[in-house]
């Protein structure tokens, strides 16, 4: 009898954790899921079950010049950022990996700093400097600003990949006749490619989602998707936002999946 009571108490005590975790899981994923049904309804308020169903908002979105332009700006910027941040970040991660000295420690600190410094501070600083060089409301300006934020993540990912890679192979390539650069491209890069891919996904996602810096340095024709969404949310809730949100969410999930697969492959290729 006592054993039964003990087991019951243990079950209750154990189950509170499950309940809490389940509630948290719902809490975490609810917002992501909610936007999808929203985009199929024309109403401003989401009620369960949804009152109306139509794909009208999607057509409106594709027809809207402003939203199309914003989408274009964001996608182009994110693609350029992905290329720039991955290239610069991989080169920097390589440099940090092979020269372990005090100077490279300073470089590493500088590269990581944007993660600690409040983004609003960086944003107004960029806005101010860009104003002097006429870089506000330009795509190059956006690309540079977003790359700054993406670099730390690229460096972290690629550095991790380099750490689990056997540098002797590069030595072997060199003694066989390859210059250091050639050895990097022929031997090292193919083997850290999964870390680099994961880093590229990060860079793309960070740029696409970036709101604070874009708020200040993009505008008019070069408004980003995030800026338009933000302004829209500030003033009134446009149902088209739901469409944008849905599309962005799908893109994020795809990026996430690719990144996870790449990271898993990176771990496996060590053998």
């Amino acid at each position, binding site marked *: 009898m006592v054993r039964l009571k003990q087991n019951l108490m243990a079950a209750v005590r154990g189950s509170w954790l499950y309940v809490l975790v389940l509630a948290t899981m719902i809490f975490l994923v609810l917002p992501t899921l909610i936007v999808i049904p929203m985009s199929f309804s024309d109403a401003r308020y989401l009620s369960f079950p949804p009152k109306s169903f139509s794909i009208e908002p999607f057509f409106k979105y594709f027809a809207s010049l402003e939203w199309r332009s914003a989408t274009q700006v964001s996608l182009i910027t994110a693609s350029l950022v992905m290329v720039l941040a991955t290239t610069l970040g991989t080169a920097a991660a390589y*440099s940090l990996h092979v020269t372990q000295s005090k100077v490279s420690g300073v470089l590493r600190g500088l590269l990581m700093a944007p993660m600690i410094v409040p*983004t609003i501070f960086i944003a107004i600083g960029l806005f101010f*400097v860009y104003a002097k060089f006429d870089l506000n409301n330009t795509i190059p300006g956006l690309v540079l600003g977003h790359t700054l934020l993406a670099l730390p993540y690229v460096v972290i990912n690629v550095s991790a990949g380099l750490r689990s890679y056997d540098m002797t192979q590069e030595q072997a390539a060199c003694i066989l006749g390859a210059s250091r650069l050639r050895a990097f491209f022929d031997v090292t890069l193919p083997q850290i490619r999964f870390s680099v891919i994961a880093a590229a996904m990060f860079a793309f996602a960070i740029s696409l989602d970036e709101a604070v810096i874009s708020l200040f340095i993009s505008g008019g024709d070069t408004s980003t998707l995030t800026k338009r969404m933000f302004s829209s949310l*500030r003033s009134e809730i446009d149902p088209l936002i739901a469409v944008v949100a849905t599309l962005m969410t799908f893109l994020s*999930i795809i990026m996430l999946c690719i990144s996870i697969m790449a990271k898993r492959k990176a771990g496996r290729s060590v053998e």
Partner: protein
Amino acid sequence: MSSDLFDALNARDLRKAQRRERWYLFGSGLPALLLVLLTFVLPIGWLFWLSLFNADGQLSIENYTRLLEPIYVLTFVQTFKTGIIVTIACVLIGYPYAYFMIKGPRWLANVAMALLLVSLWTSLLVRTYAWLIILQRRGIANDLLMSLGITDAPLPLVYNLTGTVIGMVHIMLPFMILPLYAAMKSIDPIYSQAAAAFGASPSRAFRDVFLPLSGPGLAAGATLVFVITLGFYVTPALLGGGKVQMISMRIESDVSMYANWGAASSLGVVLLLATLLILFIVKKSAGLGRRSE
């Protein structure tokens, strides 16, 4: 040529060659360095500079002394208050979640991680927008509360501090859970097993062994959450409805509405220094804690 002279020349040439090779290796990191200097060091340095000049263009510290006025003090208080509330909430919700990810059944723990990552990778704006929808007067949160009979009239859950906190907690949870999870993962289960071998009940073992060992991870996560919340802009701006004034929002209005660069930059500098100070204190006390063992 005497051999000593030859040696000296040879050594010098070798050193030069060694240095040249070093520079080539550094060169790989130079483009990134250049970008960081232009888009980060330069603007921030300029802002520091700007903060030292008043509206008339003279060198003064009135931008900083102005921050002692009640309206700014209120902003600081509100920002820190929000930060503390969000951090505590994240600790209370995040710790069990991270614990579950370690100890729970494999498949469910994987689902927990997957959902966490989905949340993290979903756009910030999308999530903030979603909370706007959920928490509004005719949103599903109020619908649920009313249908459960908890309340008769819709509660104001958004455009205030409540909405801001809910949204911030959602955004910050991954930053609490992931470092905590990493720290917990590195705790050797042998310690809890040893405690059990000595006669400790599971809850006792947890309290005396696991909890203290997870302390550093908890501190890391909490610090991260607090520091990021201090400087956060998007979510408080959208969910606060103007009633929640964070430092970041005041900086924004100082720039876009008043073009008051002196005020904005000094505020930003203070925010940055507060962030660095907190990180420094936590790092030092973590080091001290370890030394006392």
